């Protein structure tokens, strides 16, 4: 008995043939809830390994070259059949369509921010009772988890190159934060040049850059 392994959601049929998937299964396109899903029929899902992760990324990169937008699905996602796929996707069609629109014509660049110590955090107490102070602290912690002010000098340089940003603080020196940027296809070379030219301005923080990647980090709101 086979099940449906879900690879990605696409803005439309790719220009090239779908080809084969990680398990050497023929890939097929399923039109569901106004979306196009790229799937394969497998008896067993691929075991996560260096080889299968690379293979899945390669499958998607090949197809991405011939379509406007692709939203990779998390590795290892299986559903019972096409009907179950429709049932899973239909309620989220508006969010998924918006996410596809957001990543159209773009790819992802990833920055990691490094430093020997996390910046000190200080803020004034919100005052009020213990409940107010607790909730205010929770709000500030939530905001801080997605805030990377260390990159402000770089953000000014990247300006028009970046369509959207996702940020996640780790605050585990030396790794302080990971930031993903959505960049128009073809602009990644200029993006890297801007990062390189900003290194002095970013001191004492160090930044490493990788990409271009498919927009893995920009479909999460659709979950």
């Amino acid at each position, binding site marked *: 008995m086979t099940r449906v392994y879900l690879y990605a959601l696409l803005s439309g049929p790719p220009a090239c043939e779908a080809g084969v998937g990680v398990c050497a299964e023929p890939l097929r396109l399923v039109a569901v809830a106004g979306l196009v899903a790229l799937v394969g029929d497998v008896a067993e899902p691929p075991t996560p390994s260096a080889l299968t992760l690379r293979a899945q990324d390669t499958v998607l990169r090949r197809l991405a070259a011939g379509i406007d937008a692709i939203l990779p699905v998390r590795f290892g996602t299986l559903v019972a059949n096409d009907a179950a796929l429709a049932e899973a996707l239909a309620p989220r069609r508006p969010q998924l369509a918006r996410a596809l629109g957001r990543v159209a014509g773009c790819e992802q660049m990833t920055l990691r921010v490094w430093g020997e110590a996390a910046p000190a955090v200080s803020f004034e107490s919100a005052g009020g009772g213990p409940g107010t102070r607790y909730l205010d602290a929770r709000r500030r912690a939530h905001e801080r988890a997605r805030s990377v002010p260390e990159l402000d000098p770089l953000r000014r340089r990247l300006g028009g190159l970046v369509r959207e940003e996702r940020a996640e603080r780790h605050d585990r020196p030396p790794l302080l934060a990971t930031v993903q940027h959505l960049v128009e296809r073809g602009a990644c070379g200029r993006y890297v040049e801007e990062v390189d030219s900003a290194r002095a301005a970013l001191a004492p923080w*160090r930044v490493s850059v990788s990409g271009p990647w498919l927009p893995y980090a920009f479909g999460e709101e659709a979950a």
Partner: protein
Amino acid sequence: MKPRAAAEILETADDSLLDLVDNLLTRGVVVSGEVVLGLAGVDLIYLRLQAILCAADRVSGERHRRP
């Protein structure tokens, strides 16, 4: 995730593979269904990934890489 598979990924990791693990295992659209990787397993991988990234930075210093 089987521990052996996790070890294989992380012990043979190079720069681009670490980013690949981060992208494919901890990001991407989440669709309800039968996901072969349990959430606890993914969290564990992500913690180990961060640890290895930190270790790699200490060894190699500032890096500039492309996949």
